[in-house]
C-alpha cells in the first residue's frame, strides 16, 4: 500500500503537476492562436513574439516595482505588473492590426499571404524585444518559491517520495482556470461573444445580420492580447524568461491548436494539455515509478524511457502529424468558435 502511494506521488510530482502547469501555458497560447484563426482566418506566426512582448513589459514593470520596494509579500511582484503588461500587449495587437493586418483583411487576401505578413510582424516584434531587453535569460519570480517543499511533504506524510509544489505552478493553474472560465462565459453569454461566434461561423451571414466586423476584430485582438500576455508571463515565471524560447514555443502552441481542432476554443485548451502531457509522458523515465509498483524480480534494469528528453520537442510534432493523418479536423471538429 505504501509502495502504491509512493508511486502515485512520483507520478504527481514528475508528470501530473508539471504537465498541468505546462499544459495551461500551452492552452492559453493555443486559445489565442485559435481566436485569430477563427475570426481573422490566418495562422498567426507572430503569436509567440506577442507573448514574449507581454512578458517583457511585465518584467520591466516588475523591475520598476522592485526598485520602488513595492511587492505583494509572498506572491511574485510580476502579478502586480501583469495588468500593465496586458494593456501594453493589447495596444501592440491593435497597432499591428491597424497598420498591417487590416489592409489585407479589406483586400480579402488569402490566408497564406496573411501568414507571411504575420512572419514580418514576428520579425519586427522580435527585433523590438531584443533591442529593448537583450537576449539573456532573466529570472524575475520573487516572493515565496515553494508552497510545499519535497522535504515538508515527506515529513508530513512519512512517505519516501517528496511532492514539491512551486508557487508559480499553482499561480499558473489558478489564473488559467479564471481566464478560461471568463473567456468561455464571454463567448457563450454576452452579446459581443455571440456575435464573435456568429462571425466565425459564417462571415457573410453575420455581416448581413448587422454585426460590425471591425468591432468583432477589435474585441478579438483584446482577448488575444490578454491571453498572450498572461500565457507569456506565466511561462516566463515558471521556467525563466528568454526571448529565443518563445519562437520555439510557437510550434507546440500551433500543434495544440491544430490537435484540438483549430478554431475551436475548447479544442485548443484540450490540445494544450494533450501536447503537454504527451511531451512529458513520452520522455519521462518510468524506472522509479515501476520500482514501487512491481515485485522485486520484475523490476526494470534500464530507465524505461520511450524517448530521451532531447526529443521533447519532436514529440509534439509527431502527435500533430498523427492527428492530422487520422483525424484532419482535430480531436474536436474545428473551424467554428
Amino acid at each position, binding site marked *: 500500500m505504501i509502495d502504491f502511494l509512493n508511486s502515485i506521488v512520483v507520478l504527481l510530482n514528475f508528470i501530473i503537476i508539471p504537465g498541468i502547469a505546462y499544459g495551461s501555458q500551452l492552452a492559453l497560447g493555443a486559445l489565442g492562436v485559435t481566436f485569430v484563426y477563427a475570426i481573422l482566418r490566418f495562422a498567426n506566426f507572430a503569436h509567440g513574439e506577442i507573448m514574449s512582448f507581454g512578458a517583457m513589459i511585465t518584467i520591466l514593470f516588475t523591475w520598476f516595482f522592485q526598485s520602488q520596494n513595492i511587492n505583494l509579500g509572498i506572491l511574485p511582484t510580476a502579478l502586480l505588473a501583469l495588468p500593465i503588461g496586458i494593456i501594453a500587449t493589447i495596444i501592440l495587437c491593435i497597432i499591428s492590426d491597424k497598420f498591417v493586418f487590416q489592409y489585407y483583411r479589406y483586400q480579402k487576401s488569402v490566408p497564406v499571404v496573411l501568414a507571411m505578413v504575420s512572419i514580418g510582424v514576428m520579425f519586427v516584434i522580435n527585433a523590438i524585444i531584443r533591442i529593448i531587453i537583450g537576449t539573456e535569460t532573466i529570472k524575475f519570480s520573487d516572493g515565496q518559491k515553494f508552497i510545499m517543499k519535497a522535504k515538508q511533504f515527506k515529513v508530513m506524510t512519512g512517505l519516501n517520495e517528496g511532492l514539491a509544489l512551486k508557487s508559480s505552478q499553482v499561480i499558473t493553474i489558478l489564473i488559467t482556470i479564471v481566464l478560461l472560465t471568463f473567456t468561455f462565459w464571454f463567448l457563450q453569454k454576452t452579446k459581443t461573444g455571440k456575435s464573435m461566434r456568429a462571425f466565425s461561423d459564417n462571415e457573410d451571414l453575420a455581416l448581413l445580420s448587422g454585426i460590425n466586423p471591425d468591432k468583432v476584430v477589435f474585441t478579438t485582438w483584446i482577448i488575444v492580447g490578454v491571453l498572450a500576455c498572461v500565457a507569456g508571463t506565466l511561462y516566463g515565471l515558471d521556467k525563466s524568461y528568454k526571448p529565443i524560447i518563445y519562437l520555439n514555443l510557437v510550434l507546440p502552441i500551433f500543434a495544440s491548436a491544430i490537435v484540438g481542432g483549430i478554431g475551436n476554443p475548447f479544442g485548443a485548451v484540450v490540445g494544450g494539455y494533450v501536447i503537454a502531457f504527451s511531451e512529458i509522458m513520452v520522455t519521462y523515465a518510468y524506472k522509479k515509478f515501476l520500482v514501487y509498483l512491481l515485485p522485486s524480480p520484475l523490476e526494470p534494469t534500464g530507465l524505461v524511457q520511450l524517448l530521451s528528453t532531447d526529443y521533447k520537442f519532436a514529440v509534439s510534432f509527431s502527435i500533430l502529424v498523427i492527428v*492530422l493523418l487520422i483525424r484532419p479536423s482535430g480531436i474536436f471538429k474545428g473551424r467554428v468558435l
Partner: protein
Amino acid sequence: MIKFESYEWIAIAIMISLFIFVGFIQGWSVSLVILNMCIISAIMTMGVNISWGYAGVINFGVMGFLAMGGLAAVIVSYPPITESWQVGGRGLGISFILLVILVIAVMYINKIVTKKRNRYLLNTIVIFFGILLIRHFYLTATDNIEDVNPAIAGFLGGLGLPIIFSWIVGGFFAAGVAFIIGKVALGLRSDYLAIVTLGISEIVVSVLKHEEWLSRGVKNVIGLKRPVPYEINLQNADWFINLVTYLNSTKLNNIIDTSDRQQVLNNLIIDGSGIFVKLSYALLFLIVMVIIFYFANKAQLSPWGRMMRAIRDNETAANAMGKDIVKQHLIIFVIGAAIVGVAGAMLVTLDGLFTPSGYRPLRFTFIIWIMVIVGGSGNNLGAIFGGFVIWFSWIEAAPLTTFIINQLTAGLEPTNALKLHLLDSVPYFRYLFMGLILLLILRYRPKGIIPEKIRHS
C-alpha cells in the same frame, strides 16, 4: 533561350555593382565572403521558388533540408572510422532490418485488418513492442560507437570521397526526406502545411543534434576537406607566387630595396591566397547556380511548367483537365527540397564544418522565405535577386545601423546610457530591417521586386 528584359539587366547590374562597391569600401575579401553566401542563398531561394512560385506548394522545411544536405557533406567527405563500424555496425544493421520488418508488418496489418478499431489497437501493440526490441539493439550499438575515442571521433565517419560529390548526394538526401514529408503532409491546406513542414524540419534537426553516432551531434564535425586549395599550400606554390608577382609587377618594380620588395610580395601573397580560395569557391558555386537557373527556367517554360501554373492558379480546373494534382505537388515539393539540399551541402562545404545546433528556423527558414517574397515568387531571376539583396542587407545591416545610431546620437555624450544600449543592440536591428522589408514589399509590391512574367501561351 533565356532572354532578359531591360529591368532584369538593371537588377543584374545592381547585384554586381553592390559587390564592387563593398570591394572598394571594405576590401575584396569581405566582398567575396558575402558573394559566396549570396550565391548559396540564391540557390536555396530558387529551391523554395520552384515549389512555391511554380506550383504554390508551401515549404517551410528549408532548415531541415539544408541540414540533410549538410549531413550528406559529412557522410561523403569524412574519412571512415573503421573502429566505430566494428563495434556498432552489426547492431545498427540488425536494428535497421528490424525497422524494415516493423514497417512491413504495419503495412500488412493495415491491408489485412479491415475493422478500424482492431487496426489501431493492433498497430499500437506492434509498434510499441517493435520499438522496444529495436531500441535494445540500437542503444547498445550507438553507445558503443559513441564511446570510440569520443574526443575526436565517436561517430561512424563517412566515405572519405571528395566533398564535391556531396552536393549531389545532399540533393538526394533532402529529396528522400521531402518525399516522406510530402507523402504525409501534402494535401493539407497551405497554412497547415506550413506549420507541419516547419515542425518536421525541427524534428530532422533535433535528430541530427542528438544522434551522435550519425552526425556527432552537438559536438560538431570539423575539418571537412575542401574542394579548393588551402591557403598555406598556395603560399608555397611556385606558380601562385609567380602569378602574384606578374599581376603586381609594376608595383613591385617601383620598390628598389630587395628586402622591402620581398616583404611587400609576401603580404601580397598572403592576401592573394585568401582571395584566390574565395574566388575558386565563388566560381564553383556560380557554376552550380547557373546550371540550376538554366534548368529551372527551361522547366518553367516547358509544358510541365505550364501545367504547374495551371495547378497553382486553379486546382479544381486543372484536376478537371485530368492532371494528377497530388502527384504533381509531391514531385515539385521533392524537386524544390532537393535543390535546397544541394545548397545545404554547399553551405557545409564552404564552412568546412557541420554544426547541427546552428540550424535555427529564423535564420534558415524565414529569411529564405523573405528572399523569395522580396525577390519575386515565380521568377527565377527574382529569386536570385532576392537571395543576393536580402543576404547583402542581412550582413551590411550592422555597419549601417552603427552608422545611423552614431549619426542620430551624435549630440549625446559617448557615455550616455541610451547610446551605449543602442550600440550594444546593433546586431538585433537586422531583424527589424528584415521584418520591415518584408512588410513593405508585401504591402506595396506583393508580387516581389522582379515579378513573374505573365505568359499568354
